[in-house]
């Protein structure tokens, strides 16, 4: 059965200011959704609210994932349910090597913490060597040098390297639903292609994605099943891939005018 992320009439405020004004959207495994929209329309707010950023307060509505309301859950609990966010601005963490961190994250997601009594050392060592192999493969897939595994998390990475490292992490952590927050911005066209191919590789009945973007170019490679346009904290139009081309041709202004006209009425 498909897992569903159900966003119902979601209102979100940041420091008392309402940014999302009633978003309703269902994302199922097996589907790729794209959200497009002008700057400041609330796309990133949606991404961060879905993952549980403490500054983003849900004032109304619900977020259900696999039937469970996750609004009160910590970000790590959401991750454990199978949610992932590829950050628009991945954080730099000094002194924490990417590889070692991902191993810790993977163990945390699998529910193995060091506190869990006697760990099976042999099984652990085997899992670790498998993990290392897998990490090497994934870095190759994203065309990143192996040495990045030893480097401190995002420290000194270029903008493009940070974004590709996010996708490496996504591949390793294997979420059911991934939110990609402008993963394509700041990437050259070759990198966009590499990232899109890596996302496409996960595509299947057990993986769904919500791809937030400004630009159509990544969507040309991803071919989303659904496209939504967000303006002023609401989804104002939904459609299939053809909507991307309509937006490309006409821009957002006509939709903005339409939204304003509706608001006046």
């Amino acid at each position, binding site marked *: 059965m498909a897992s569903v992320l159900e966003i119902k009439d979601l209102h979100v405020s940041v420091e008392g200011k309402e940014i999302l004004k009633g978003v309703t959207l269902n994302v199922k495994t097996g589907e790729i959704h794209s959200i497009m929209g002008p700057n400041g329309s609330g796309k990133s707010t949606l991404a961060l609210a879905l993952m549980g950023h*403490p500054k983003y307060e849900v004032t109304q509505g619900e977020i259900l994932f696999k039937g469970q309301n996750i609004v009160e859950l910590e970000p*790590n609990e959401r991750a454990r349910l199978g949610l992932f966010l590829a*950050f628009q601005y991945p954080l730099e963490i000094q002194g924490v090597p990417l590889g070692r961190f991902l191993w810790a*994250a993977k163990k945390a997601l699998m529910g193995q913490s060091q506190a869990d009594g006697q760990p099976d050392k042999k099984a652990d060592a085997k899992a670790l060597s498998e993990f290392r192999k897998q990490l090497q493969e994934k870095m190759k897939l994203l065309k990143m040098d192996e040495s990045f595994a030893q480097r401190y998390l995002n420290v000194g990475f270029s903008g493009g390297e940070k974004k590709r490292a996010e996708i490496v992490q996504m591949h390793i952590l294997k979420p059911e639903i991934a939110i990609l927050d402008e993963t394509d911005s700041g990437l050259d066209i070759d990198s966009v292609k590499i990232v899109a191919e890596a996302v496409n590789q996960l595509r299947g009945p057990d993986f769904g994605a919500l791809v937030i973007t400004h630009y159509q170019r990544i969507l040309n490679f991803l071919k989303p099943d659904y496209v939504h346009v967000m303006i002023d904290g609401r989804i104002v139009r939904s459609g299939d891939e053809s909507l991307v081309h309509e937006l490309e041709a006409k821009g957002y202004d006509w939709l903005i005018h339409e939204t304003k006209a509706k608001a006046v009425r």
Partner: protein
Amino acid sequence: MSTLRSFSVDTIAEQAASRGEPTWLVQKRVEAFEALQRLPLPESRYTKIRGLDLNAFDFAGQNAHHAHIGELAAEREAVHIQLDGQILITQVPESLQSKGIVFCDMATAIREHPDLVKQYLFHAISPSEDKMTALVSALASSGIFIYVPKETVLTEPVRLVYLLDEPSVAALAHQVIIIESGSSVTVLEEAYAKHPDGPGPHLHGTISEVYLGEGARMQFGALQNWNEGTYSFVRRRAHVGRDAKIQWTIGWLGGRLTMSSVESRLVGPGAEMEDIQVLFGRHKQHFDLTSSLRNMAPHVKGEIHMKGVLKDQARAVMYGFIRVDPVAQQSNSYQLAQGLLLNDGAHCDAIPGLEIEANDVRATHGASIGPIDEEQIFYLQSRGLDREQAKRTIVEGFLTPTLEQIPIAGVRERFHAFVEQKWNE
């Protein structure tokens, strides 16, 4: 019990003489004792000394040799162990003695090497510099004296172990370390509470005089993990000769109040120093740490790195002073202080000081102090780590680049283990 009140100038002089100390040293003791009476506690704007009554401590142990033989000493190492100020053991392998290395307690050094003692004892540190230095200078007779002759390389570290156990005990130590030209030594000092949760208060004081001859090398590693009822005062000063290098690496974990000053005087051209200090404070601990670099010759080089993690209501002030004398042209100095605060009650100040009297030098400093970054916590949590794990990961990452620079693996690993332990308690 013999409290500070039971001493006078006369008893200080009498006792020193009865230990066979030469007249010049007796005079230093008297000078120190007079300074002790006169000087105020070393408080500052950032450090108030609360609850310390010097008269509440027992200073009786300063002369005695403890009855038990240390079980902490490995057979073939040079090691000196003191418990509550009393010497448990001072042991040096025959192989080192035959090289002319002197490793003995101060009383023995005074007896057997009077000329060396006279040349170096109280040469780098004056007995009346401040109240706590005066206290140690007046009363500490059970110190350690290390002399390494020319062109001698010690491959194994020399260990100095200080243990505190009985409540209300005062333990004072004077260290003199002389590394002659071309020689190389690693000194590892461990300062522990015998019972980490044992009752205080304890009073601990160390003064340490270090002399490096031409081209000499010394790595000095120290770990301090007193219990949280201990008042600890430490003053170290090194004279670093031509092309010599000193590397200090100090990990601070324990104590109620710790005041430390490490000063490196680069007296010879081409001399170098590196001082890495890391601290982890919790509960109501207070740390007042100073690292001073004084460039006194051309082409010298020095680096100071101080890093602190503070939890609960712990406080720290980290001073980094660089002074460049007019002769110290083409010198290069750098200092960095960083503090990470884990919660609202924790506090840290970084006070840099630069005094430059030469015109062709490089001297830079940086400081950053702030709370743990919520955005970083969110990022790590979004990958599956719980909040506590995320914080720990960030703290470990904060310390890692500095710990990796510590040249002595034992210090690095044990500091790590202590942090782990303190975090879990």
